[in-house]
């Protein structure tokens, strides 16, 4: 081939190839400098990182934004009604160009690690729900200290969050993150097929023992006529399914036990070492071996199978994040399409040794909002959050346009369920835009709950409200420790996997092998960092005494 090729042809081919490689080498560099001047690296010291925005030159403020791949047309994730609203109402008046940096929701932490490591390319506002990740960044000195900036530009922000929530962003006495705030702290509720209970003439179970009897009856009598496919208790390997069961077995404990034996991995507390954990697993094991919970629960890491099973009408009882079943086009609505007579109602049967319906709740903080140290626009970033915290702005961002998206009734924004789709789509991702808030804020807790319930299809609002009330009954409030546990930031993420492996192994062992399965899984967990966390917490507790 080569000798026959004309010289001109081969020459131009080579030239094209060479220039292509040059082009690609250039383009990979040009992005990082767009928008802002060469970054000063880590040298810009905290507090003085502000640059005067008012003095003529427009600055670009880059803000992370979760991308769930659900943007309705004609919008794009970085160009929607809400991003435009922010640009027009906050950006333009302050001479700031807002730039949203999309990050896939499911790979949030991995992507954030990569962004942080890139230094100059990282957005000015980043966030995560994972406290281990926040602690790691804080410990490695990668975050801007916001104490002074908050005093200077963040008066609305401080009022909105209050000291309770702000305390979650303090690391070693420095305000290194601005925690979002949660309006409703409840997490889980249980649900049962009331129509199955009626068919069997049974009354709703009120204790764990009664629940067990009900599950056995569901399996043996198959009131849903599923043809042997009945799953009395729908289970997965997701917190919403295993947490309520396990925490209901945790026994009363002393303050010392609460402090030293709890393991906080990521943003949640784990009861691995607390008294009662083993009993929980023993019960789990019994349910599994008697065929009362989903057989493949260990494979279901995203509730996909469970959702299918619920919708197909074969699940009798389950625990779930309290609002999940009742959304429009949610599991309950789809269940009604398969089994029109189905009734899936909230219930609270899991009881602990004191007869309480103990279950975990959220801490009053939402995500950790952070400003990387390499950011040159820390002041603008705080101003942006302060703007978002003002109630009229938050109302507009969370609810859209009054009269079109919602009506005000007694100070509660009521979503108009009959609004046309393009109007609804305006605020499709308000939860991800309003990073300061988890849930809607009206300034009053009861009103927040009503506002939240008003967003559901009218037919399910009553059930939703009941589930919500169950979710805040007898809750364990998470414990706030003002000093970071280093071992938790180091091993936290890996231990979460270990914890789930622990549950699966203990639950699926043959009953006579339970003891050894439990022991070996515990050993594995302790060796993988559990011991290190226990030691550090014990030491810290003694120092504090």
């Amino acid at each position, binding site marked *: 081939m*080569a000798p026959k090729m004309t*010289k001109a042809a*081969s*020459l131009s*081919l*080579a030239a094209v*190839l*060479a220039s*292509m*490689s040059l082009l690609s080498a250039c383009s990979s560099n040009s992005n990082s400098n767009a928008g802002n001047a060469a970054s000063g690296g*880590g040298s810009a010291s905290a507090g003085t990182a502000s640059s005067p925005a008012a003095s003529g030159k427009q600055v670009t403020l880059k803000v992370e934004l979760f991308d769930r791949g659900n943007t309705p047309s004609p919008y794009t994730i970085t160009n929607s009604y809400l991003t435009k609203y922010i640009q027009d109402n906050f950006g333009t008046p302050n001479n700031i160009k807002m730039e949203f940096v999309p990050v896939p929701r499911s790979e949030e*932490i*991995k992507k954030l*690690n990569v962004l*942080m*490591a890139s*230094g100059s390319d990282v957005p000015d506002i980043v966030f995560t729900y994972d406290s*281990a*990740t926040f602690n*790691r*960044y804080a410990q*490695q*000195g*990668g975050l801007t200290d916001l104490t002074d900036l908050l005093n200077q530009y963040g008066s609305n922000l401080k009022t909105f969050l209050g000291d309770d929530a702000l305390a979650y962003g303090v690391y070693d006495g420095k305000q290194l993150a601005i925690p979002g705030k949660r309006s409703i702290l409840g997490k889980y509720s249980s649900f049962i097929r009331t129509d199955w209970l009626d068919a069997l003439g049974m009354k709703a179970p009120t204790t764990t023992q009664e629940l067990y009897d009900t599950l056995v009856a569901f399996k043996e009598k198959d009131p849903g006529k599923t043809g042997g*496919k009945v*799953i009395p208790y729908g289970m997965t*390997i997701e917190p919403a399914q295993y947490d309520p069961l396990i925490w209901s077995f945790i026994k009363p404990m002393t303050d010392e036990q609460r402090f030293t034996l709890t393991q906080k991995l990521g943003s949640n507390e784990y009861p691995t070492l607390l008294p009662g954990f083993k009993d929980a697993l023993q019960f789990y094991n019994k349910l599994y071996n008697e065929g009362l919970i*989903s*057989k*493949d629960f*260990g*494979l279901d*890491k995203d509730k996909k*199978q469970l959702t299918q099973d619920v919708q197909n009408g074969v699940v009798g009882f389950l625990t779930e994040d309290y609002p999940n079943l009742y959304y429009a086009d949610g599991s309950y609505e789809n269940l009604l399409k398969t089994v029109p007579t189905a009734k899936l109602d909230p219930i609270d049967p899991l009881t602990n040794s004191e007869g309480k319906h103990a279950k975990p709740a959220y801490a009053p903080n939402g995500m950790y909002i952070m400003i*990387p*140290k*390499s950011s040159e626009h820390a002041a603008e970033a705080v101003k942006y959050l302060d703007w978002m915290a003002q109630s009229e702005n938050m109302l507009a961002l969370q609810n859209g346009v009054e009269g079109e998206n919602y009506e005000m009734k007694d100070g509660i924004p009521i979503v108009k369920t009959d609004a046309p789709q393009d109007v609804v789509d305006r605020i499709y991702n308000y939860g991800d835009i309003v990073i300061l808030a988890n849930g809607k804020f009206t300034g009053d807790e009861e009103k927040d709950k009503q506002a939240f319930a008003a967003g559901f299809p009218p037919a399910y609002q009553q059930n939703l409200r009941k589930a919500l009330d169950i979710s805040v009954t007898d809750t364990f409030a998470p414990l706030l420790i003002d000093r970071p546990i280093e071992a938790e930031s*180091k*091993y*936290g*993420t*890996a231990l979460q*996997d270990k914890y*789930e*492996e622990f549950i*699966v*192994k203990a639950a*699926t062992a043959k009953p006579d092998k339970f003891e050894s399965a439990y022991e070996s899984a515990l050993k*594995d967990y302790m*060796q*993988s960092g559990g011991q290190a966390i226990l030691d550090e917490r014990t030491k810290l507790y003694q120092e504090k005494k």
Partner: protein
Amino acid sequence: MRGTVYLRRYWQLYALLVLPLAYFVIFKYGPMWGVQIAFKDFNFFQGIMGSEWIGLDAFREVFHSHDFFKTLRNTLMLNILDLIVSFPAPLILAIMLFEVKFQWFKRLSQTILYIPHFISWVIIGGIVYQVFGTQSGLVNNFLASLGFGPVPFLSDKHYWLFTYLATGVWQSAGWGTILYLAALTGINRDLFEAAEVDGAGRLKRIWHITLPGLKTTIATLLIINLGNMIAIGFDRPFVIGNKMVMDYSDVLSTYVYRTGLESGQYTLATVVGLFQAVVGLIFVLGANYASRKLTDEGIL
């Protein structure tokens, strides 16, 4: 003098090489700069240069870690089993296809056989879960209709090994035949005719002509496979694996993913990566040496 004439005449060919060379420099040699992370307490806000040297501390931590040995054992176990099961499969398939007389049938079956190679593991994972699930999987539904109890293909670690290996064969065997078939076309047809005239049966012909003709290809592929003994693809164990079979499905690549990308411990992840590279190199050189001794064929 001759050199310059030669260069002037053929420089375009060398220019064409620039792109592949640039690929290797940028994507294969460039990242080696980062290997030093294994010896540093890597802090990503300070960058590679700003991080402190810690000597072999990270190696000590990895070699003391319980998970490292478990994942190392699993990696070797899965790879050795895979070698035993998946390595001969394309060879046998290729010989069978080669013996087929109808060209259209051969072409058709070849295409059907190698289509799975183009399906991403993520999709295969989805299919596997639908087909082999305990509660609602296709196979178990079928078994149930025959009156057999469910087989935990995905949730029992021993059955899971079977599932893992079988999907591996299904995915890669067809594609693997291509190299063998190419080598087979290189065998002189006269040999087969002469053998047939001499009264050699089909099996005899395969044994004395086909297999020796494939010796070099087999040796080459074996060396490549052995070189990958310690490396293991990420997708397959990650996608097919699950919490219930972590005892077997957790391998070095998933371990690196967990410690490096999920927990942000880049130093430990780099240590494991470096370890894999060094052991991999030893395996390749060893296999090459053995192959030279045994068959006089090597690739280095």
